[in-house]
Every structure is written in C-alpha cells, then in structure tokens.
C-alpha cells in the first residue's frame, strides 16, 4: 500500500518537476504524444522518465516557450507551492559541478558566487566535510527586514528574490545576512552582449546590473518550466534535493522522497538555527559518507586563517 502510494507520488512529481532529462537545450515534454507531425528523418536521443534512452524524430521536439516574468509579476510566488531544499552532506565531495552550473546559468563571472562549497569542521576531533551553501530563502529573512526600498522580498512560495531594477545598492541586506549569501556587482558585470540585452527578470537574476545586490534565486524560472534548479541537475552525486513542502516531497533527480521522512530519519538540520532565521534549506549530516574528505588547494589556506 505504502509503496504504491510512493510510486504514484514519484511519477506525479516526475511530471510536475519534469525530471525528464534532456540531451539538448530544447525540452521534449510532448515528445511521446502522437500528434500528426511530419517527420523530418532527423533523430535525437532523449532520456525518458523511466530512465531509458529513446530515439525520436526531431519534429516531435517542441521548444518550451520562454516565459518572461517581469519584476512586478515576480513579486507573487508560484501558487500553491512552498519550495524547499535538502542538501545531503554525506554525498558531497567538492566536485563543484553545482557551482559551475550556477555560475554559467546566471552569468556570474569569476568573482560572484551564488553558491559556495565550504570546508567545515565542527570541532577539532570531528572530521571535516564539504558544505554547499547558498541563499537559504529564510522564512524570517533578516535581509528583507532591513531593505529600505522593498527591493528584496519574500514570496508566497517561500522564495526570497531581489528586484535589481529597484535596488539602491546600500548593501544593508548583505550585512544583515548572517550566511553571507548575497553578492554585489561592484563594477559593470562582464556578460555576453546578447545576455545583457535580455529582458530582466528577478526570477533569473539575469542580466545583472552594476551597483546592485544579487544572490541565489532558487531558479523559479526552471521550476516554471517544470525543471529543477541548475545546481540540482548538475550534481552527479545527488547531493541536492529540491521540492515542495506542501507536497511533502523532494527529489534529487534519481529518487523522490518524502521531505518529512527524510528529515526525520536522517536528522535533518538547518544552519545556525539559533539565529531564528528559519532557513528553507536543510542539511543531512555528513555521516556514513560516500567519499573520504580530501582537501583542495584553497581549503588548507583558510584553515590557517581561521586559527589566527
């Protein structure tokens, strides 16, 4: 009984979140519908929801229309959703694929990081581990509280966004955020011309603007397309689970699980619970790890700094 329920939920989620991975930038949501389409003869390989590689004619591919959400509309959340993320620290080995995908999709440039992977060590005897951090989309966001112009706001779907068309660049939100999640465009952002000419949407944080604050946006533009945030899909180890608290389900692309069970069974926690910010990003402790910890060239240096 229980397993069927879970299966139903899983298939439902797969539809909802569109885990159908794609081989090209074009999504083939309608690929399996047998409309009367004239076949071109050109075939493309796709990964089906069942995890099989299928070959279909290119004519069945339909580009997902890019929905542009202007700043005023971006203030309202996606209805009946409450997005949440769970990060499994036992699986992270600092591959940085999430980071690179995030940087690429948001056109961050070398100095701007929406997502960081930090070396953490809770005490001297405990083993160090890698911890991805980003904006936690807190339910009590200190950044939103201090913004003098309502440029950063909390939506009904739990996401905290920034309207860089309104931001005055006072950076109060940056000092208010205890997680240092926010970044600033100190100079004219170096982005390709065609990206710079795009219509701006707070949901994509693109194009960035000089003199304004930006940060991880939980990729609501991907969610609207029925896909997962870039960090989730980029991670080969399934570290990131993303989903909807109302549905009580999260998925890392490989498996879909009940949020409440996952957090209960694996002792999910949030960073600096004592600060009262109520993050929407949970962590699973780094126990029974998939990989041994290995330092990288930067982590050794920061160790030294922290002790002094």
């Amino acid at each position, binding site marked *: 009984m229980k397993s069927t329920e879970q299966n139903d939920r899983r298939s439902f989620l797969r539809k909802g979140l569109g885990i159908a991975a794609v081989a090209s930038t074009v999504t083939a949501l309608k690929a399996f519908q047998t409309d009367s389409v004239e076949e071109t003869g050109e075939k493309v390989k796709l990964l089906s929801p069942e995890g099989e590689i299928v070959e279909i004619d290119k004519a069945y591919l339909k580009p997902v229309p890019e929905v542009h959400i202007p700043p005023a509309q971006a203030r309202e959340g996606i209805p009946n959703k409450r997005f949440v993320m769970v990060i499994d620290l036992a699986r992270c080995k600092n591959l940085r694929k999430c980071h690179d995908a995030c940087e690429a999709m948001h056109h961050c440039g070398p*100095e*701007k*990081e929406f997502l*960081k992977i*930090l*070396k*953490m060590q809770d005490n001297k005897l405990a083993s160090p581990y890698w911890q991805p*951090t980003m904006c936690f989309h807190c339910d009590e966001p*200190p950044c939103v*509280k*201090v*913004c*003098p*112009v*309502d*440029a950063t706001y909390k939506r009904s779907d739990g996401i905290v966004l920034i309207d860089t068309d*309104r*931001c*005055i*660049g*006072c*950076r*109060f939100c*940056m*000092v*208010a955020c*205890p*997680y*240092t999640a*926010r*970044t*600033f*465009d*100190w*100079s*004219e952002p170096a982005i390709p011309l065609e990206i710079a000419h795009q219509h701006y949407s707070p949901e994509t944080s693109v194009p960035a603007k*000089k*003199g*304004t*604050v930006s940060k991880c946006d939980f990729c609501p533009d991907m969610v609207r397309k029925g896909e997962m945030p870039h960090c989730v899909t980029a991670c080969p180890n399934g570290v990131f689970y993303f989903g909807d608290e109302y549905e009580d389900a999260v998925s890392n692309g490989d498996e879909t699980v009940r949020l409440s069970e996952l957090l209960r069974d694996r002792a999910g926690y949030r960073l*600096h619970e004592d*600060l009262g*910010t109520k993050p929407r990003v949970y962590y699973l402790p780094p126990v029974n790890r998939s990989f041994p910890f290995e330092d990288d060239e*930067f*982590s050794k240096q*920061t160790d030294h*700094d*922290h002790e*002094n």
Partner: protein
Amino acid sequence: MKTKAHTSSKNTGDQSEEIIRELMPRPFGRIGQLWVALLIVICAVGLFFYIQQVRDGLGITAMRDYSTWGIYIANFVFFVAISLVGSLISAILKLSGAQWRTPLTRISEMIAVPAILFAAIVIVVDMGRPDRFLNVIFHARIQSPITWDVIVISTYMVISLLLLYLPLIPDMALLRDRAKDLPKWQQKLYKILALGWNNHPEQVKILHKSELYLSILIIPVAFGIHTVTSWLFATTLRPGWDSTNFGPYFVSGAFMVGAAGVIAMMYIFRTFYKFEKYITDKHFSNMGKLLVLLSLLYLYFNINEYFVPAYKMKAFESDHLKSLFYGRYAPLFWAVQVFGMIIPIIVLLSPKGRKPLPMFIMSIFVIVGAWFKRFLIVIPTLSHPYIPMTRVPESWQHYFPTFKEWWITASTLAGALLIMAILSRLFPIIPVVEEIEEAGLAKGENQTT
C-alpha cells in the same frame, strides 16, 4: 539699530561699537586664503574620483562581498557623531543654564550643519545606485532602520539649520544696517537673511521662544540620529555589532567628539581672529571639564562593549575580539583607546591640562581617535562572518581602502571644513547681539524700541 544708538549712553555705546567692530566677519588673511584654496583643490579632485566611481561602480574602492561596508560608512558615522555637538552646546548647555556657552553656540552650529549635511552626502557616495536615491522616499519601507535614519537625519538637519539661523537674525540686521562699504551681493544677502528684523519686542519674544522650543526639540532628535545610526549595525546578527549597548555607546562617543570639535574650532578661531577677550581661558577650562566628563562616560560604555563579551568569549565573538585585542587590528585599536580616550582624560583632569594649547592638542587626539574608532567599529566585524571565507583573494579577506577611496573620504571632510570656512567668512563667529546683551549694554535699547 540706528534708532537705538542715541538712546544708550555714550560709554556703553562705545563699548558696543567695540564689540561690533571686533566681531564683524572679516576677509580671509593669507593663511585663510591658502586654507580655502587647499580645501577646494582636495574637493575638486575628490569630485573627479567620485565621478569615476559613478561611471565605473564601487569597484574602484576596496570593498567586496565580505567587507561590503568600508570607510565610507565609518566616515558617515563620524559625521553623524560630530554633528551632535550642535545639540550639546545649543540645547543641553542652554537648558542647564550655562551662561558661558554664548560665544560657543554659533561655532557649534557651524560644525553641526556641515557635518550633518556631509553625513547625508557620504551615504549617497556609498550607494551603488545613487541615481535611484529617490526610491528611498517613493518605495520607503518603515521597517528598515535606513528609513528611520533618513527621517531623523533630515529632521536634525532642519533643526540644526534653524538653530544656526535664528540666533543669526539679529546679527544679520546689524550687518545690514552697518555694512555699507561691503560688496553689493553681501549687503543684499544680509538684508534677505535679516528678514526685516528691527528688534521689536514682539520679534524678540518670538525669536527667543522659537529658540527655546527648538533647543528642547533637538535633544530627542539628536539622541535619535545617533541611536538609529548605531542600529544600522546593532539590528544585524553580526558578532561585534549584535549588542544592546550600541545606542548609548554611540551617543556618548558622539558627544565626546563633538565637544572636542568645538574645542578645536574655538582654539583656531581665537588664534586667527584674536578673540581672547570673548573666548577666554575660562571657556576652555569649562569645555575641558565637559570633555573629561563625556570621555569618562564613553570609557564606561567601552568597558561594557568590550569587557563583557571578552569575558564570555563566545565562539564567533572571540574571532572578532582577538583581532582587536592582539590580532590584525590591535595596533590601531590600542592606539585609538589610549590616545583618543585615556590620555585626553588624564591630561584634562589636571587644571594645567585645561589651558588652551594642551586642550587643542587633546581635542585633535580625540577627533582623530574618534574617526579611527568608527573604522574599528565598522570594518573588523565584516572580516569575521559566520560562514568561513574560502576561495577569495587575499585582498577580500582583509579590507584596506584604495587611494581613491581615501581621497573621496578626505574630500568629504575637506568639504565640511570648507563650508565652515565660508560660514565663518560671511557670518559673525561669535553672536554679536547676544554678546552685547550679555555685557549688559543692551538693556536701555530694549526698553526704548
């Protein structure tokens, strides 16, 4: 004034004439001209760098994602702090009945007005998007301490301007009637600013009443501006700022640096304009006692601010405190505490230390110390975030301002000094009419008019 002159006796008339002659605004001497020229050059270069900053972004500063506030904000806090002197001398001393404050009132307002003006300017300089400044009004959110700061600072600016201007009206009338050999524009200026003042008892009554109300009103506003400014830090969760002590700590420090500012300007004006008769050793001695009192108060809040968290050494606080006590910021921290607070207290406690020259030196110590104290309040905290800094360049980990950033900051200080110089050139530095009244020479005049 003309109608009054013949009613007063010859002797008192001569005396008032002497006061008027000695206190009239005078053209700059050679040093004054050089000083103004120097300030203009500093400001002009600073403006040039600022235009670059507007064009290229705040990237020309050393601020980055961790040290996201730098010396601009430290300088802002300094300006707000020193502007509190206006309320100290004009209001607190007035309401406590300290008669000796008369020759110091205008000096204090001449410091307060440019200081609060430049506090506002510096905040715009720090903004990433100064072009969107009006969003602060059109999209104002009352939850934000910045909105509170905008409200109290603009209120304080208006009250300070009025407290500078209202006592100036009788002097303006005096200048309007006397200064016939001045350039046309200057005569016109005095005429406009005098607002048709003719020393009518009704006018005097209104003026004194307004001054009294304003000096009562400015006290809560003064506490407000600096308490709210401290809340820009204290309302965050950052170690080193997360302190309930911040309001009184900032306000007491502000009164201290304000008093030091007045002492420094008293000394400079007295030396250059030969005001020994008006700004006496007694004034210095009284201001010295006041400065000691305020410094001791500040010392008390410093002990609370540093000793209590240092006793507990909570994990994240300890990184911050260690960097101040014996880490990266220790030389600056101890220099500021010793030279900017302890030594002035020791020197000014002795009557010998309360002579004009040592007081001038001590007040410079206090002012310079106060500026760097704001640096120590703003910057080290941001170098110690909850989340460890990794994969960032060395320059991001330890903020040190760039040359242009220093220069722009220096030019805001120069700008405030320039406004003070211009005010002292155009208006009597010591209230003339009040001095005449206090010398007991004006009694007859008031009765006849």
